[in-house]
């Protein structure tokens, strides 16, 4: 018999997570699942793991929910001041470097795997990975979180450079849906954020409307009582 206070009542909030960002022909698409867990309990089934840093730069968060929230708060604060002082919008590289700096200098305290992505007029769409340890890598696409383990084979085979916006978004949604199918720590809905020269667009893909894969049954008659 499980005691009243299980391990999950005191476990840290972790975002099991699948996160992803892809550079496409004209901008970036960021995507994430929406499950936050404390142990095996789903503390929030509709979290938003894609956080705004500036008008043109967003952050995907995985790992400790608290750690990534604090890092993104600091970086948003620094970038806000930087933008005022600079007199124009911050670059994605600057935002990514700030995230890296916090992650690297506090590496023994943090458990945060992050992806910084956005659009600026100098480099167009850019994606930067900041994994555990605080390495900074600019990549054509990046994944993170526990669910990303299940995507390496798929992405090695299916990713192509210079996708169109719609192709890239479908690609992101399909990838995260695949990860949700196999990773217990990922689930819920798929959220996407598209950033390009025209601005920012958020999208939402409900959990029961995601593409279906092996052994998943399509919705039909939902109840034997109907």
């Amino acid at each position: 018999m499980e005691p009243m206070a299980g391990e999950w009542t005191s476990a840290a909030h972790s975002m099991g997570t699948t996160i992803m960002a892809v550079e496409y022909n004209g901008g970036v698409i960021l995507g994430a699942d929406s499950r936050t867990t404390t142990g095996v309990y789903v503390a929030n089934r509709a979290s938003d793991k894609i956080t705004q840093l500036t008008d043109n730069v967003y952050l995907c968060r995985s790992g400790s929910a608290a750690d990534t929230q604090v890092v993104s708060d600091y970086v948003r604060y620094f970038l806000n001041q930087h933008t005022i002082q600079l007199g124009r919008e911050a670059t994605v590289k600057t935002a990514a470097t700030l995230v890296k700096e916090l992650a690297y200098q506090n590496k023994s305290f943090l458990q945060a795997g992050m992806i910084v992505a956005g659009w600026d007029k100098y480099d167009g769409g850019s994606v930067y990975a900041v994994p555990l340890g605080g390495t900074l890598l600019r990549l054509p696409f990046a994944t993170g979180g526990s669910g990303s383990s299940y995507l390496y084979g798929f992405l090695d085979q299916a990713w192509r450079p210079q996708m169109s916006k719609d192709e890239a978004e479908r690609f992101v949604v399909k990838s995260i849906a695949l990860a949700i199918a196999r990773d217990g720590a990922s689930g819920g809905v798929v959220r996407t954020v598209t950033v390009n020269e025209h601005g920012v667009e958020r999208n939402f893909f409900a959990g029961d409307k995601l593409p279906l894969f092996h052994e998943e049954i399509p919705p039909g008659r939902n109840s034997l009582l109907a």
Partner: protein
Amino acid sequence: MFSSAVSTTSAPNTRTSQPIVTGTTVLGIKYADGVMLAADTLASYGSLARYNDVRRIQKVGSSTLIGASGEISDFQSVLDILEGMTREDINLDDGYTRTPAEIHGYLRSVMYQRRNKGNPLWNQLLVAGYREKPFLGYVDLIGTAYEENFIATGFGAYLAIPIIRDRWRADLSEGEARALVEDCLRVMYYRDCRASNRIQIAKATGAGVSISEPYVISSDWETANFDIRHSTRGSDGSSW
């Protein structure tokens, strides 16, 4: 006078970090024209071959190369420090730039100091360059530092060094040096779980410093009779 209602505990100071995103072997050999460094372009995440295009050999100034194995974020931090030094050389504009040997000596101090504070930069670095004569030096996370005619970090110390010892001469031509280093990296690819076949070769000579674009080395699975369909013997190349 009064006791605090809440005990104040500061965060545990865990400094000796553990490497997370890592690179494997870097090789260095002196040859007729100068020094050559070689490494693959893989950064691993434990056993996962995570990032396939990581440049573990970089230029420092105009006459030095640095190659790193170990934690990539710490290597990036070392590169930042060195970039600051290079910028200083340029801005002082007094006709002098730091030599490869000076950079090696400086990194040695940095690495040893960090080791003494219990907060190492988790790397094994090769510093290579050419300033009147070739230079090849090693520095690592505990502050070990030495110069040699040929050096390998990580697994390469076990696999590649014996091969190099057999074939090295001070007057190796560039072609011979490249072949030697490629052969070593091929053995690394066969026998090191954390190696890849996508490599870079860099050289520092009197003419300057250059790093090749990454390319894929060949591998041989035929001659050792691994294909059991053609064999009456054991299925793994053995004779029984």
